């Protein structure tokens, strides 16, 4: 009976020390009595180890991978190359076609003699590194490469005249804003600005470029998959994988 009284007293004291969200200790049955005895004898230690609000928050954060790990490395692929949709200047969409624009007999015949084969492209191949400096904000770097190729061939013999390759490579500084973080799901918005080089059959030039993920979602923990809806050189829709460390 004495022990019971002591236990009750100690528990009341403990309840005064921990806040309303602290773990509740139930002392009703015999099993709990033995626990209570242990608590009573180790009161000081238990009080020091009981999580505070801040500590509990930290604990939760530790369980969310996107908050636990500061660094992220991801690779992905974008569809529908977005640079052509930028209503900025004609420089992004200018196209050369000397044969079509020239009216000499040689050019007219060449226009009839040759055709463009299937145009293939690998657009928005992206590698990104980001470093979290706030729970909701990360900065990093992003590299995006797009490549397309087509061939001018003879209409009858299919003989290759020349191959028209276009390579776009961009380096961007990227900012990422995480606005929904859970254990396996993170949603974010990111924006990157930088430079892009355009290399084709005729020339190479450098242009300003951006890449934005208006809405992005990651699913997974350390190793995760992601999908984004965005604009810019990365493409309109992107998917990929990443690793947090």
């Amino acid at each position, binding site marked *: 009976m004495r022990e019971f009284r002591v236990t009750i007293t100690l528990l009341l004291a403990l309840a005064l020390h921990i806040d309303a969200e602290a773990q509740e200790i139930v002392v009703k049955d015999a099993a709990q009595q033995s626990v209570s005895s242990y608590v009573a004898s180790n009161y000081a230690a238990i009080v020091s180890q009981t999580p505070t609000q801040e500590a509990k928050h930290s604990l939760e954060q530790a369980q969310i991978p996107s908050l636990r790990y500061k660094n992220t490395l991801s690779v992905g692929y974008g569809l529908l190359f977005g640079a052509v949709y930028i209503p900025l200047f004609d420089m992004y969409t200018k196209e050369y076609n000397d044969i079509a624009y*020239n009216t000499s*007999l*040689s050019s007219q015949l060449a226009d009839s003699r040759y055709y463009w084969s*299937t145009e293939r492209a690998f657009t928005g191949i992206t590698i990104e590194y980001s470093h979290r400096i706030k729970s909701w904000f990360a900065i990093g770097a992003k590299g995006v490469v797009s490549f*397309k190729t087509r061939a001018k061939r003879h209409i*009858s013999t299919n003989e290759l005249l020349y191959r028209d390759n276009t390579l776009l490579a961009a380096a961007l500084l990227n900012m990422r804003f995480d606005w929904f973080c859970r*254990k396996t799901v993170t949603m974010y918005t990111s924006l990157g600005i930088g430079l892009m080089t355009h290399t084709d059959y005729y020339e190479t030039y450098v242009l300003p470029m951006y890449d934005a993920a208006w809405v992005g979602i990651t699913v997974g*923990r350390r190793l995760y998959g992601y999908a984004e809806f965005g604009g810019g050189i990365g493409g309109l829709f992107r998917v990929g*994988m990443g690793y947090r460390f």
Partner: protein
Amino acid sequence: MRALSRYIVRFAAIAAIVTASVACTLSEGYRHSPVSLCRRIWNDVNYDLSYINIILKKVILFDHMFDIEDEAEREAYIDTMLHAASIEQSGDTYTIRYINEYNTYHTQVIKTSGGRFSQGDKWEVSYDGGLGYLATITASGSGYKVTFSRLYDDKSNTTAELEMSYELTTYSENSDTLVDIEYSGHLAMTDYTESISRPLTIATTITRPVKYNGNYGMTGGAFDIVCRDALYNSTDHIKADINSSTGLVTIEYYGSRWTEDVKNRVNL
């Protein structure tokens, strides 16, 4: 939950691979018919032939003018058959002026040696219009040899070596004169528009004589045409055949054939 996230990650990876493979094709190539190429080359040759036909017709009609002794008939002939505004003679050289729809004059000059080409004289015919030319006509065997050393402008030029014969039919009721010309030989066109050092050439060999009727145009002839474009290092070999009965031309290129109307594209 962990197992679920693994599945999601795997699904994302597979979806990425699938979309990547689909996205590889931006646009399908379109391998169009070579008919436009053949038609373009044939039209160029046809243009030369039509022009040559008109020149020969005018020269033959001019030569025939000397058969008309009556001054009034000759004036009427000049007006209706030659469509000339005036003819001036200076020694052995005749200057024929034509007026076009823009009321501008062009001058055809025929230098003779004092006689008629139909009687063995050598004629040199030139024209200073937009489509200039320089041709010589001399008697050769039972017919005539016609050499065009210049046809057209300074950017493209055609030369031709032809063996020609002709027939004239004059109708007494209306004094109209019908010209029937037949010739064979070869033409060589060179176009420097795209490249001076690597021009485009079209060599035409007449494999069956061209038949030209003053009223109906070309009614026969077969052609072996080789178009060589040094700029593109390409050679196009085309065969064209004008069917005498149908008046249609059949063009053949790499085993493919098309048939269409023969158009006389030059009107002086």
